[in-house]
C-alpha cells in the first residue's frame, strides 16, 4: 500500500502519496486546481467540470511521476512514513526534511 508507483511505473494516488507530495502539487498545479474550483463554484454539476478535472488530475499525476523519477529513495521513505503514521506530518519530520532536501519546492 505504500508504493508510489505500480508495476507499470504509473503513480498510484493513494492518500499517503498525495499528502506527501501535496506541497509540490500545491505549487506546480496551482492554475489547474484554481480553474477546477472556479468551474465547480459556477456549477456543481460533475458533468460540466470533467475537462478541468482531467487537467488537474493529469497535472497532479505528472508531478508525482516527476518527483518519483528525481528522488526515488527519499520519496519512498517519506511515503512509507506517512503510510505508517496515517498522514501525520508532525511524526514524519525527518523523512520530510530528507525529501525536501532531495527535491526542493520552488
Amino acid at each position, binding site marked *: 500500500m505504500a508504493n508510489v508507483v505500480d508495476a507499470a511505473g504509473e503513480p498510484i494516488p493513494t492518500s499517503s502519496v498525495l499528502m506527501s507530495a501535496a506541497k509540490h502539487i500545491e505549487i506546480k498545479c496551482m492554475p489547474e486546481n484554481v480553474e*477546477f474550483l472556479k468551474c465547480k463554484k459556477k456549477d456543481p454539476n*460533475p458533468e460540466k467540470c470533467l475537462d478541468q478535472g482531467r487537467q488537474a488530475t493529469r497535472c497532479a499525476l505528472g508531478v508525482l511521476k516527476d518527483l518519483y523519477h528525481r528522488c526515488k529513495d527519499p520519496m519512498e521513505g517519506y511515503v512509507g512514513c506517512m503510510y505508517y503514521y496515517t498522514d501525520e*506530518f508532525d511524526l514524519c519530520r525527518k523523512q520530510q526534511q530528507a525529501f525536501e532536501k532531495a527535491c526542493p519546492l520552488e
Partner: protein
Amino acid sequence: MTESVIRNKPGMASVKDMPVLQDGPPPGGFAPVRYARRIPNKGPSAMAIFLAAFGAFSYGMYQVGQGNKIRRALKEEKFAARRAILPVLQAEEDERFVKEWKKYLEYEAEVMKDVPGWKVGENVYNSGKWMPPATGELRPEVW
C-alpha cells in the same frame, strides 16, 4: 513499717514528725519555659506574593499562547495539504459519478419507456441548480 524505715529521721518522736518525701523541683527552681507565641513577621509581603503569582500566571499564559501558535501552524499545514489534493480527488469522484449516472439514466429510460408523458432523465428540482441525487442510500463498500 517500710515508710518509717525509709523516711526515718533520727530523733523522731512519732510518725507525724516524718519528713516529707516529695518529688520537687531542684534547688533554685526549674529554668523558665517559653510558652508565648513568637510567629516571625519577616518574609515576602502581600504585594510581593501577589506579584510573584501574577508573574507565574502570565508566564504560563504566554507559553499557552506560544503553544497555540505552533498547533495552529501544524493544523494549517494539514489543511493546506488537503486543499492542494482536493481537485484530484473530486475529479476522480466526478468521473465515477458521471459513469454511474449515465448507467442510471439508461435504466430509467428502459423502465419508464411505456409511461406516457415521462421526460426521461433529469427530472429533479425546479430551481435550475444541480443537486446531487437524494437516494439516501449508504454504500458501505465505498465508505
